[in-house]
């Protein structure tokens, strides 16, 4: 905390329909502070017109997702020393594949609308929480009356990183498909229709960036593959009179 680095924040700016540009802010920061702290400093001490989203500052709300030096990050848990060096530059841009509202703020409306459509539950019993770690087998947990907030914090990093989402706005996106996998296909028949489509589970082309950038242990990639199995399972059942 006592070391100080000289870092230049290069921040994407766009207001209304004007041409976007980058503004530079040279600041003295501690390398153990987070990128979000730096962005906040820019607003607090340099430019009060900067708009950005943030709320919890501890990776549970999903508000502060941005691209830092080209990579999707949750800026509240991204230390400055992870993305630059003393005398270096931190480029901060809004997430991709969402309409930009102003500066670093994007409109996540499509994501929320689709999460509602697939019935992703924000809180669920621990034995249904299906806590991901695809490297270990999913542990079956006893029914113990306890609840768990779902891992997905709807931050949009996965959709920003997905090359398919970059070319097709209609693609449901990793978070949504992972959300559908969490809910399963039995709770609502509309979900099957939604995901079993050319903009649903079949559109994924295995780039795996979603899992790479997810800050919340959701691991959307294997969930999409798992969902494919579930969809095929459903179709077989239907074929044979299910």
């Amino acid at each position, binding site marked *: 905390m006592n070391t100080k680095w000289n870092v230049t924040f290069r921040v994407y700016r766009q207001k209304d329909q004007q041409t976007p540009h980058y503004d530079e802010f040279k600041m003295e920061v501690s390398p153990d502070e987070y990128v979000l702290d730096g962005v906040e400093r820019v607003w607090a001490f340099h430019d009060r017109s900067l708009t950005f989203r943030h709320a919890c500052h501890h990776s549970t709300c999903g508000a502060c997702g941005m691209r830092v030096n080209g990579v999707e990050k949750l800026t509240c848990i991204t230390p400055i020393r992870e993305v630059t060096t003393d005398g270096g530059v931190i480029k901060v841009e809004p997430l991709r594949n969402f309409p930009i509202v102003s500066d670093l703020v994007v409109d996540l409306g499509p994501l929320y609308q689709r999460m509602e459509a697939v019935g992703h539950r924000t809180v669920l019993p621990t034995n249904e929480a299906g806590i991901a770690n695809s490297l270990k087998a999913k542990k079956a947990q006893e029914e113990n009356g306890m609840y768990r907030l779902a891992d997905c914090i709807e931050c949009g990093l996965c959709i920003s990183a997905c090359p398919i989402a970059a070319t097709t706005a209609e693609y449901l996106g990793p978070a949504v498909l992972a959300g559908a996998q969490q809910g399963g296909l039995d709770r609502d028949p509309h979900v099957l229709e939604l995901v079993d489509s050319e903009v649903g589970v079949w559109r994924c*082309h295995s780039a*795996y*960036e979603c899992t790479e950038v997810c800050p919340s242990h959701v691991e959307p*990639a294997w969930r999409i593959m*798992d969902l494919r199995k579930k969809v095929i399972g459903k179709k077989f059942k239907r074929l044979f009179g299910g």
Partner: protein
Amino acid sequence: MSSTPQKPSNAIKWFDPRWRQMGSWAFILNRITALGLTLYLFLHLGILSQLAQGPDAYDGFLATIHSPVFIFGEFLVVSAGIIHGLNGIRIALNSFGIAVPYQKQLFAGLMALAILGSLIFAVRMFTA
């Protein structure tokens, strides 16, 4: 000081491996080899239709295919086929939920095989 950011068109947005991980590289490589192989397919059909026009055309064609540029082109096709095919196996496996957590290792291993295969073909093709 400010500078203006540029945006690529939707058609080529997927082609940006900068700051991305191995999975993205695999995806981009697969697309490029696919485009290359498709292009080759059209060329191949085009040339075949030319060849259907008689023995003189065939002889003329044989003359060109021995040039190093042509052989190199064919080597690219073979290499693209190996890469695309092996990566395709990885993608097929993953699509069935097999080995998803190991997709990076699988890619690395299969590409090592692809390099090996390409080298073998290179030796055979350039020393024939």
